[in-house]
Protein backbone atom coordinates (compact mmCIF):
# COMPACT_ATOMS: atom_id res chain seq x y z
CA UNK A 1 0.00 0.00 0.00
CA UNK A 2 2.62 2.40 1.08
CA UNK A 3 4.86 1.42 -1.81
CA UNK A 4 2.14 2.24 -4.29
CA UNK A 5 1.64 5.65 -2.81
CA UNK A 6 5.34 6.23 -2.99
CA UNK A 7 5.45 5.14 -6.65
CA UNK A 8 2.60 7.55 -7.52
CA UNK A 9 4.29 10.34 -5.76
CA UNK A 10 7.59 9.54 -7.52
CA UNK A 11 5.86 9.41 -10.94
CA UNK A 12 4.13 12.71 -10.25
CA UNK A 13 7.38 14.37 -9.21
CA UNK A 14 9.15 13.00 -12.31
CA UNK A 15 6.37 14.50 -14.53
CA UNK A 16 6.76 17.89 -12.88
CA UNK A 17 10.54 17.71 -13.29
CA UNK A 18 10.11 16.98 -17.03
CA UNK A 19 7.85 20.03 -17.47
CA UNK A 20 10.35 22.26 -15.67
CA UNK A 21 13.25 21.04 -17.88
CA UNK A 22 11.19 21.70 -21.06
CA UNK A 23 10.40 25.24 -19.90
CA UNK A 24 14.07 25.95 -19.11
CA UNK A 25 15.19 24.66 -22.50
CA UNK A 26 12.71 26.88 -24.35
CA UNK A 27 13.68 29.92 -22.31
CA UNK A 28 17.42 29.34 -22.99
CA UNK A 29 16.81 29.07 -26.73
CA UNK A 30 14.88 32.37 -26.78
CA UNK A 31 17.69 34.06 -24.84
CA UNK A 32 20.33 32.84 -27.32
CA UNK A 33 18.37 34.25 -30.21
CA UNK A 34 18.09 37.64 -28.53
CA UNK A 35 21.85 37.64 -27.86
CA UNK A 36 22.73 37.05 -31.50
CA UNK A 37 20.25 39.75 -32.69
CA UNK A 38 21.79 42.33 -30.34
CA UNK A 39 25.31 41.41 -31.38
CA UNK A 40 24.53 41.94 -35.02
CA UNK A 41 22.89 45.29 -34.29
CA UNK A 42 25.96 46.40 -32.33
CA UNK A 43 28.35 45.48 -35.14
CA UNK A 44 26.30 47.50 -37.59
CA UNK A 45 26.33 50.57 -35.31
CA UNK A 46 30.13 50.37 -34.90
CA UNK A 47 30.67 50.16 -38.63
CA UNK A 48 28.41 53.16 -39.22
CA UNK A 49 30.19 55.26 -36.59
CA UNK A 50 33.60 54.43 -38.10
CA UNK A 51 32.45 55.55 -41.51
CA UNK A 52 31.18 58.86 -40.08
CA UNK A 53 34.37 59.54 -38.20
CA UNK A 54 36.47 58.87 -41.29
CA UNK A 55 34.42 61.41 -43.17
CA UNK A 56 34.82 64.05 -40.43
CA UNK A 57 38.62 63.56 -40.31
CA UNK A 58 38.87 63.87 -44.06
CA UNK A 59 36.86 67.16 -44.01
CA UNK A 60 39.11 68.51 -41.25
CA UNK A 61 42.25 67.65 -43.21
CA UNK A 62 40.92 69.43 -46.23
CA UNK A 63 40.06 72.54 -44.23
CA UNK A 64 43.45 72.59 -42.56
CA UNK A 65 45.29 72.36 -45.82
CA UNK A 66 43.21 75.23 -47.14
CA UNK A 67 43.94 77.44 -44.09
CA UNK A 68 47.68 76.73 -44.32
CA UNK A 69 47.76 77.69 -47.91
CA UNK A 70 45.95 80.99 -47.25
CA UNK A 71 48.20 81.89 -44.32
CA UNK A 72 51.35 81.41 -46.39
CA UNK A 73 49.94 83.81 -48.87
CA UNK A 74 49.54 86.71 -46.36
CA UNK A 75 52.59 86.07 -44.09
CA UNK A 76 55.13 87.97 -46.22
CA UNK A 77 53.27 91.29 -46.02
CA UNK A 78 52.25 90.81 -42.50
CA UNK A 79 55.81 90.03 -41.39
CA UNK A 80 57.07 93.24 -42.95
CA UNK A 81 54.43 95.32 -41.18
CA UNK A 82 54.98 93.43 -37.98
CA UNK A 83 58.74 94.09 -38.06
CA UNK A 84 58.21 97.77 -38.51
CA UNK A 85 55.71 97.90 -35.65
CA UNK A 86 57.98 95.87 -33.48
CA UNK A 87 60.97 98.11 -34.10
CA UNK A 88 58.94 101.19 -33.36
CA UNK A 89 57.61 99.69 -30.15
CA UNK A 90 61.08 98.63 -29.09
CA UNK A 91 62.48 102.14 -29.54
CA UNK A 92 59.58 103.57 -27.58
CA UNK A 93 60.01 101.01 -24.82
CA UNK A 94 63.75 101.75 -24.52
CA UNK A 95 63.10 105.47 -24.35
CA UNK A 96 60.46 105.03 -21.65
CA UNK A 97 62.62 102.59 -19.74
CA UNK A 98 65.62 104.94 -19.85
CA UNK A 99 63.49 107.77 -18.54
CA UNK A 100 62.10 105.57 -15.82
CA UNK A 101 65.62 104.50 -14.85
CA UNK A 102 66.82 108.09 -14.67
CA UNK A 103 63.87 109.04 -12.51
CA UNK A 104 64.33 106.01 -10.28
CA UNK A 105 68.00 106.83 -9.83
CA UNK A 106 67.16 110.42 -8.99
CA UNK A 107 64.54 109.32 -6.49
CA UNK A 108 66.95 106.82 -5.01
CA UNK A 109 69.61 109.49 -4.63
CA UNK A 110 67.11 111.73 -2.86
CA UNK A 111 66.00 108.91 -0.57
CA UNK A 112 69.55 107.89 0.20
CA UNK A 113 70.57 111.47 0.86
CA UNK A 114 67.69 111.93 3.27
CA UNK A 115 68.38 108.56 4.81
CA UNK A 116 72.02 109.49 5.41
CA UNK A 117 70.95 112.73 7.08
CA UNK A 118 68.42 110.84 9.22
CA UNK A 119 70.98 108.24 10.19
CA UNK A 120 73.50 110.90 11.15
CA UNK A 121 70.95 112.82 13.20
CA UNK A 122 69.66 109.68 14.90
CA UNK A 123 73.19 108.45 15.55
CA UNK A 124 74.22 111.74 17.13
CA UNK A 125 71.09 111.68 19.30
CA UNK A 126 71.72 108.09 20.36
CA UNK A 127 75.37 108.84 21.09
CA UNK A 128 74.35 111.84 23.19
CA UNK A 129 71.87 109.69 25.09
CA UNK A 130 74.47 107.00 25.55
CA UNK A 131 77.00 109.59 26.72
CA UNK A 132 74.52 110.97 29.27
CA UNK A 133 73.63 107.49 30.44
CA UNK A 134 77.30 106.59 30.68
CA UNK A 135 78.05 109.71 32.70
CA UNK A 136 75.15 108.98 35.00
CA UNK A 137 76.21 105.38 35.47
CA UNK A 138 79.83 106.45 35.99
CA UNK A 139 78.76 108.85 38.73
CA UNK A 140 76.65 106.13 40.35
CA UNK A 141 79.53 103.68 40.09
CA UNK A 142 81.87 106.26 41.62
CA UNK A 143 79.50 106.81 44.52
CA UNK A 144 79.06 103.09 44.98
CA UNK A 145 82.80 102.56 44.84
CA UNK A 146 83.36 105.33 47.38
CA UNK A 147 80.85 103.69 49.71
CA UNK A 148 82.40 100.29 49.22
CA UNK A 149 85.87 101.70 49.89
CA UNK A 150 84.62 103.54 52.97
CA UNK A 151 82.97 100.36 54.29
CA UNK A 152 86.06 98.34 53.50
CA UNK A 153 88.24 100.87 55.29
CA UNK A 154 86.00 100.77 58.34
CA UNK A 155 85.99 96.97 58.32
CA UNK A 156 89.74 96.92 57.76
CA UNK A 157 90.32 99.37 60.61
CA UNK A 158 88.15 97.25 62.86
CA UNK A 159 89.92 94.05 61.87
CA UNK A 160 93.30 95.73 62.22
CA UNK A 161 92.37 96.89 65.71
CA UNK A 162 91.35 93.36 66.67
CA UNK A 163 94.51 91.88 65.15
CA UNK A 164 96.62 94.55 66.83
CA UNK A 165 95.06 93.87 70.20
CA UNK A 166 95.44 90.12 69.70
CA UNK A 167 99.07 90.51 68.68
CA UNK A 168 99.77 92.78 71.65
CA UNK A 169 98.21 90.21 73.96
CA UNK A 170 100.21 87.44 72.33
CA UNK A 171 103.36 89.52 72.58
CA UNK A 172 102.53 90.35 76.14
CA UNK A 173 102.09 86.66 76.97
CA UNK A 174 105.23 85.69 75.11
CA UNK A 175 107.34 88.39 76.76
CA UNK A 176 106.18 87.51 80.24
CA UNK A 177 106.47 83.81 79.53
CA UNK A 178 110.10 84.44 78.58
CA UNK A 179 110.65 86.54 81.72
CA UNK A 180 108.97 83.84 83.80
CA UNK A 181 111.06 81.10 82.21
CA UNK A 182 114.33 83.00 82.62
CA UNK A 183 113.49 83.89 86.21
CA UNK A 184 112.69 80.25 86.97
CA UNK A 185 116.00 79.12 85.50
CA UNK A 186 117.90 81.77 87.47
CA UNK A 187 116.11 80.85 90.69
CA UNK A 188 116.59 77.11 90.13
CA UNK A 189 120.33 77.64 89.66
CA UNK A 190 120.82 80.14 92.45
CA UNK A 191 119.03 78.26 95.25
CA UNK A 192 120.88 75.33 96.84
CA UNK A 193 119.40 72.40 98.73
CA UNK A 194 119.78 74.05 102.13
CA UNK A 195 117.98 77.14 100.87
CA UNK A 196 115.17 74.92 99.60
CA UNK A 197 114.84 73.21 102.96
CA UNK A 198 114.80 76.57 104.68
CA UNK A 199 112.10 77.82 102.31
CA UNK A 200 109.96 74.74 103.03
CA UNK A 201 110.30 75.15 106.78
CA UNK A 202 109.64 78.85 106.35
CA UNK A 203 106.48 77.97 104.47
CA UNK A 204 105.38 75.68 107.32
CA UNK A 205 106.05 78.42 109.87
CA UNK A 206 104.20 80.94 107.71
CA UNK A 207 101.24 78.58 107.49
CA UNK A 208 101.19 78.25 111.26
CA UNK A 209 101.49 82.02 111.68
CA UNK A 210 98.63 82.57 109.26
CA UNK A 211 96.49 80.17 111.29
CA UNK A 212 96.31 77.41 108.66
CA UNK A 213 98.00 74.99 111.05
CA UNK A 214 96.87 74.95 114.64
Amino acid at each position, binding site marked *: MNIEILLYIAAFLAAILGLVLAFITLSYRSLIQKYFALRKENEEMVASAKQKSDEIIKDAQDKAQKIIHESEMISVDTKKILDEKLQSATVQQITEFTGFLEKAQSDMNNVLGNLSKDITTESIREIENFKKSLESQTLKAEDMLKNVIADSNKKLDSEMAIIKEKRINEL*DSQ*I*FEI*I*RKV*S*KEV*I*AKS*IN*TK*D*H*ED*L*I*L*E*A*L*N*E*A*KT*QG*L*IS
Partner: protein
Amino acid sequence: MQPELENQIYDNLVTNEDVAKLLKCIDLLLNTMYQNDTVEFDRVLNTECDVWFSEIVRNLDVRGVEKGAFLKNISKKIKGLDEIIITIHKEPNERLKEAVKSWIDANLGTKVIANFENKKSILGGAIISYKGKYVDYSLEKRLNSVIAVMKPQLMKSLVTTGTS
Protein backbone atom coordinates in the same frame (compact mmCIF):
# COMPACT_ATOMS: atom_id res chain seq x y z
CA MET B 1 98.39 49.22 124.49
CA GLN B 2 101.35 50.70 126.25
CA PRO B 3 101.70 54.43 125.43
CA GLU B 4 105.48 54.28 125.21
CA LEU B 5 105.26 51.62 122.49
CA GLU B 6 102.71 53.66 120.63
CA ASN B 7 104.84 56.79 120.84
CA GLN B 8 107.87 54.83 119.76
CA ILE B 9 106.00 53.79 116.64
CA TYR B 10 104.78 57.34 115.91
CA ASP B 11 108.33 58.62 116.34
CA ASN B 12 109.46 56.37 113.52
CA LEU B 13 106.64 57.32 111.16
CA VAL B 14 107.56 60.44 109.19
CA THR B 15 105.87 60.16 105.81
CA ASN B 16 102.81 58.45 104.37
CA GLU B 17 105.22 56.04 102.66
CA ASP B 18 106.46 54.93 106.08
CA VAL B 19 102.83 54.41 107.11
CA ALA B 20 102.05 52.37 103.99
CA LYS B 21 105.09 50.17 104.53
CA LEU B 22 104.21 49.55 108.18
CA LEU B 23 100.57 48.73 107.37
CA LYS B 24 101.71 46.21 104.76
CA CYS B 25 104.07 44.63 107.29
CA ILE B 26 101.28 44.38 109.90
CA ASP B 27 98.83 42.80 107.41
CA LEU B 28 101.38 40.15 106.45
CA LEU B 29 102.16 39.39 110.10
CA LEU B 30 98.45 39.05 110.95
CA ASN B 31 97.98 36.67 108.01
CA THR B 32 100.77 34.39 109.21
CA MET B 33 99.25 34.46 112.69
CA TYR B 34 95.87 33.34 111.37
CA GLN B 35 97.65 30.44 109.70
CA ASN B 36 99.70 29.65 112.86
CA ASP B 37 102.81 29.77 110.68
CA THR B 38 105.55 30.92 113.04
CA VAL B 39 108.30 30.36 110.50
CA GLU B 40 106.60 32.63 107.98
CA PHE B 41 105.88 35.13 110.76
CA ASP B 42 109.62 35.37 111.50
CA ARG B 43 110.46 35.62 107.82
CA VAL B 44 108.04 38.50 107.31
CA LEU B 45 109.33 40.21 110.41
CA ASN B 46 112.91 39.96 109.13
CA THR B 47 112.32 40.82 105.47
CA GLU B 48 109.15 42.92 105.13
CA CYS B 49 109.29 45.09 108.27
CA ASP B 50 111.66 47.84 109.42
CA VAL B 51 114.19 46.85 112.05
CA TRP B 52 112.77 49.19 114.69
CA PHE B 53 109.30 47.66 114.31
CA SER B 54 110.69 44.11 114.33
CA GLU B 55 112.40 44.87 117.63
CA ILE B 56 109.15 46.18 119.10
CA VAL B 57 107.23 43.06 117.97
CA ARG B 58 109.89 40.68 119.30
CA ASN B 59 109.80 42.36 122.69
CA LEU B 60 106.01 42.13 122.99
CA ASP B 61 106.20 38.67 124.60
CA VAL B 62 108.67 39.98 127.14
CA ARG B 63 106.34 42.88 127.91
CA GLY B 64 103.43 40.47 128.16
CA VAL B 65 101.53 42.06 125.27
CA GLU B 66 99.43 39.83 123.01
CA LYS B 67 100.80 40.23 119.44
CA GLY B 68 97.57 39.88 117.46
CA ALA B 69 95.65 42.44 119.50
CA PHE B 70 98.61 44.81 119.44
CA LEU B 71 99.02 44.63 115.68
CA LYS B 72 95.28 45.12 115.03
CA ASN B 73 95.15 48.04 117.43
CA ILE B 74 98.21 49.80 116.05
CA SER B 75 97.01 49.27 112.48
CA LYS B 76 93.71 50.93 113.31
CA LYS B 77 95.39 53.89 115.02
CA ILE B 78 97.89 54.44 112.23
CA LYS B 79 95.09 54.51 109.66
CA GLY B 80 93.45 57.28 111.68
CA LEU B 81 96.51 59.56 111.81
CA ASP B 82 96.18 63.10 110.42
CA GLU B 83 98.11 64.00 107.30
CA ILE B 84 99.72 67.24 106.21
CA ILE B 85 100.28 67.43 102.45
CA ILE B 86 103.44 69.32 101.58
CA THR B 87 103.97 69.93 97.86
CA ILE B 88 107.61 70.66 97.04
CA HIS B 89 109.63 70.94 93.84
CA LYS B 90 111.49 67.61 94.11
CA GLU B 91 111.77 64.40 96.12
CA PRO B 92 112.64 65.17 99.76
CA ASN B 93 115.97 63.89 101.09
CA GLU B 94 116.32 62.31 104.52
CA ARG B 95 117.57 65.52 106.12
CA LEU B 96 114.48 67.38 104.93
CA LYS B 97 112.23 64.57 106.14
CA GLU B 98 113.82 64.73 109.57
CA ALA B 99 113.57 68.52 109.67
CA VAL B 100 109.89 68.39 108.72
CA LYS B 101 109.26 65.60 111.23
CA SER B 102 110.84 67.71 113.98
CA TRP B 103 108.73 70.67 112.97
CA ILE B 104 105.54 68.57 112.92
CA ASP B 105 106.33 67.04 116.33
CA ALA B 106 107.01 70.47 117.76
CA ASN B 107 104.03 72.23 116.23
CA LEU B 108 101.37 69.59 115.58
CA GLY B 109 102.29 66.66 117.78
CA THR B 110 103.45 63.18 116.92
CA LYS B 111 100.15 61.97 115.45
CA VAL B 112 100.53 63.84 112.17
CA ILE B 113 102.12 62.30 109.09
CA ALA B 114 103.83 64.26 106.28
CA ASN B 115 102.66 63.45 102.76
CA PHE B 116 105.24 64.86 100.33
CA GLU B 117 104.08 65.52 96.79
CA ASN B 118 106.33 66.68 93.97
CA LYS B 119 105.68 69.48 91.49
CA LYS B 120 108.74 70.77 89.72
CA SER B 121 107.07 73.94 88.42
CA ILE B 122 106.72 75.50 91.86
CA LEU B 123 110.52 76.13 91.87
CA GLY B 124 110.87 76.15 95.64
CA GLY B 125 109.03 76.74 98.89
CA ALA B 126 105.94 74.66 99.51
CA ILE B 127 102.21 74.39 98.99
CA ILE B 128 100.64 73.18 102.21
CA SER B 129 97.31 71.49 102.69
CA TYR B 130 96.09 70.46 106.12
CA LYS B 131 92.65 69.47 107.39
CA GLY B 132 90.95 70.87 104.27
CA LYS B 133 92.87 74.17 104.29
CA TYR B 134 95.30 75.12 101.53
CA VAL B 135 97.99 77.77 101.23
CA ASP B 136 100.56 78.41 98.53
CA TYR B 137 104.00 79.51 99.69
CA SER B 138 105.79 78.44 96.54
CA LEU B 139 108.44 80.49 94.76
CA GLU B 140 106.36 80.21 91.58
CA LYS B 141 103.55 82.15 93.16
CA ARG B 142 105.95 84.76 94.54
CA LEU B 143 107.58 85.10 91.12
CA ASN B 144 104.19 85.56 89.43
CA SER B 145 103.31 88.25 91.95
CA VAL B 146 106.55 90.07 91.26
CA ILE B 147 106.03 89.81 87.48
CA ALA B 148 102.45 91.08 87.81
CA VAL B 149 103.76 94.16 89.63
CA MET B 150 106.55 94.65 87.09
CA LYS B 151 104.31 94.09 84.06
CA PRO B 152 102.81 97.58 83.54
CA GLN B 153 106.17 99.32 83.92
CA LEU B 154 107.88 96.81 81.69
CA MET B 155 105.21 97.11 78.98
CA LYS B 156 105.44 100.89 79.16
CA SER B 157 109.19 100.81 78.67
CA LEU B 158 108.83 98.33 75.82
CA VAL B 159 106.30 100.53 74.02
CA THR B 160 108.50 103.62 74.53
CA THR B 161 111.52 101.76 73.21
CA GLY B 162 109.49 100.51 70.23
CA THR B 163 108.20 103.96 69.22
CA SER B 164 111.41 105.94 69.75
